[in-house]
């Protein structure tokens, strides 16, 4: 029992470490990816002893700069809330990570090891809940800054988040219905079967519409372009306009981690999770391959999200809400209804 708890704690710690490091890595990846698509070189000046490692050290330089900057709170702001806001944002998004199934259950050294940090039979609603709780930090940041720009950004973030978390949940309802479970691990296992003996029954195959809807809604929840209206750097500068140093970087990291969570959900629910099609993974090697497969798929989805970000311009605030309520939500509901009837008719057959 204690061993189990220790193992869970280790896994959660590893997941958090994975998240934080992945966020730093993503910042580098995004810099390079955008640089390639924009025909430029990208950040490459930070070097240790003349080695710049393709700009990887820029992340370290950024972190050091963030940590050594003055901790400045605007005089009209509320200092405690101002400090609490980024912590709330980052904390909730990090928590989501630990509920993702990075791997299945492997049998090593006479014991069963689950590679999912937090095993829960209602993992899916848990992740969605904690993802949306993060917005409190954003609204708090806007409010605590005592600036009209910050307040506007916070309000926009709240409105956008409320709109899109509904879409997020409804677009996944069909998946949950087909898989017959809210447990993320069980959902992955369900996708292990083969349709017609050769086609892996991934979510993207059985629920293609939901995949597209979830991709759009998920991009909106991460508050990144084209849905970056709470930030809107050239309009209202954003809810973090009065933030600097590490507190500002925490918001940035939050955005990256939210991207990882959304990408993780996409991988888990639509791309077969940690599974490699037509291959049965067992033992220690299997465990390693599970983690590798999950990471590779995660990276692909993240690259897709980045490419979207660097291709499309920004929506207007009211257009974002229109898109959410009037387009994505009805389509998601339709998808759910069609799915339910389809599954019922299939079973009655």
């Amino acid at each position, binding site marked *: 029992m204690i061993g189990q708890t220790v193992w869970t704690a280790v896994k959660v710690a590893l997941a958090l470490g994975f998240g934080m490091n992945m966020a730093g890595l993503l910042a580098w990846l995004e810099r390079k990816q955008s640089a390639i698509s924009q025909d430029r070189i990208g950040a490459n000046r930070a070097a240790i002893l003349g080695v710049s490692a393709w700009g990887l050290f820029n992340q370290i330089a950024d972190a050091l700069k963030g940590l050594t900057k003055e901790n400045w709170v605007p005089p009209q702001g509320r200092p405690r809330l101002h400090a609490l806001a980024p912590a709330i944002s980052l904390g909730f998004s990090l928590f989501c990570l630990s509920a993702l199934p990075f791997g299945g259950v492997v049998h090593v050294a006479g014991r069963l090891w689950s590679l999912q940090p937090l095993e829960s039979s209602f993992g899916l609603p848990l992740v969605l809940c904690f993802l949306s709780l993060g917005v409190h930090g954003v609204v708090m940041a806007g409010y605590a800054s005592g600036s009209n720009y910050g307040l506007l950004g916070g309000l926009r973030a709240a409105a956008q988040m409320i709109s899109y978390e509904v879409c997020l949940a409804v677009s996944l309802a069909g998946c949950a219905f087909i898989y017959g479970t809210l447990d993320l691990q069980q959902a992955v296992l369900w996708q292990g079967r083969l349709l017609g003996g050769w086609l892996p029954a991934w979510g993207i195959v059985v629920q293609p519409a939901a995949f597209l809807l979830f991709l759009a809604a998920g991009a909106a929840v991460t508050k990144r372009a*084209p849905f970056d209206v709470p930030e809107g750097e050239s309009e209202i500068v954003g809810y973090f306009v009065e933030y600097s140093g590490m507190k500002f970087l925490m918001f940035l990291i939050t955005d990256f981690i939210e991207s990882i969570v959304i990408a993780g959900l996409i991988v888990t629910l639509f791309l077969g999770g940690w599974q490699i099609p037509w291959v049965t993974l067992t033992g220690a090697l299997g465990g390693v391959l599970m983690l590798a497969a999950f990471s590779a798929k995660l990276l692909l989805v993240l690259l897709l999200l980045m490419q979207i970000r660097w291709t499309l311009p920004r929506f207007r605030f009211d257009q974002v809400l229109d898109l959410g309520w009037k387009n994505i939500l009805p389509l998601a509901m339709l998808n759910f209804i069609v799915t339910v009837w389809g599954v019922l008719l299939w079973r009655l057959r």
Partner: protein
Amino acid sequence: MPIEKKTYMLNMGPQHPAMHGVIRLVLELEGERVVSTDVEIGYLHRAFEKHAETETWNNVVPWTDRLNYVSPLINNSGYCLAVEKLAGLVIPERGQYLRVISSELSRVTDHLTCVGASAMELGAFTVFLYLIKAREYLYQLIDELTGARVTTSYTRVGGVKADMPADFPQKVLAAFALVREAIRDSDKLLTKNRIFTDRVEGTGVISREDALAYGITGPFLRSTGVPYDVRRAHPYLVYDRLDFEVPVGSKGDNFDRYLVRMAEMEQSMRLVEQCFRQIPGGKHSLEVSEMKDAFLYQDMGKSGDTALLKLYRAKVDQTLRGGQRGERGAILSAEPASTLPAKEDVYGSIEGLMNHFELIMWSWGIKVPPGEAYVAVEGGNGELGFHVVSSGDDRPYRVRCRPPCLFPMAALPKLLNGGWIADIIPTFGSVNMIAGELDR
């Protein structure tokens, strides 16, 4: 109980990314709706007009670079045309073509900057970098032509500073292929992009009557359907010999302004290509002789070999390229009272030396006859006018500049009130406010 609606104030700029650091909008907002707008300009006021009164006629040219600093060559031409009209000078044809070529290159850089920056402010960062990369190709050409990327100071009263390099046309045509490719890429990324069109269609609308009433010109006016283009309405230089279209919109919104600018870039490139076909040759071949370093040339003059000097050409610095005798006749007017003599003549003959000193010495210089003249050229943003007044002195009595972007700025409250905060960005971007020209 009725709900009391309260408005609040939002101070946008000058330290705001979309305001370019030089404009302040004091907005009264109701939620995200703009109720009223107060535009404050003048953050880049440099007293251009007053300053011009203290400079000699030719020395004003560098200050015109700083007006619209994304298309400085048009300003150079506009100012010199006004002075020449007053002085009754005729520029040689090759000089006129060079002014048209440089102006049209500048117009492309101007529109590339405007479209790119507007797109970036709408979040399409990639488009911005594509277009700025295209602008860079043109800036390199302008650098080769004038010796500077931005502070070009290319024109002189009576012509232009220097002839174009021999391989300039080939380089321009090669660069145009790259520019066209960048424009095509951006067109694909924006014009049919639903997100972009939703942002710009129907926002910042101005009616044809209002645009005319405010005195708006340029792409802003043409987007409402008025085909007014100074190059077509009051042809100057050699525009009446060139074939080009004046693209117009119909709705007068941000999208039409974007389309007009995209179409005008193609027209400008067509104009440059025609100029290269029509431009009369320079006089390079007329007196080919040995090139001598300028200091050797000078030594020969000092030792009295002035008769021999006529046989040689001085090899001078890039920035003094206009000093060479062979090409001067083709690009500068032959009027000795306004045009500096060739370096060869200055070093080689007493007449040339005297002519040089008469133009350079304090309180001598070019004497423009008393009177006043107004000349308008089609700038990047519309009708760029220069009104010069002379008292017969060696420097202007008054130089007045009509900055084309002042007028849409005056109409800005009309464009913004009633819209969303987010609409300020594309609307303000489509004004193409260039503070150097707006505040002067």
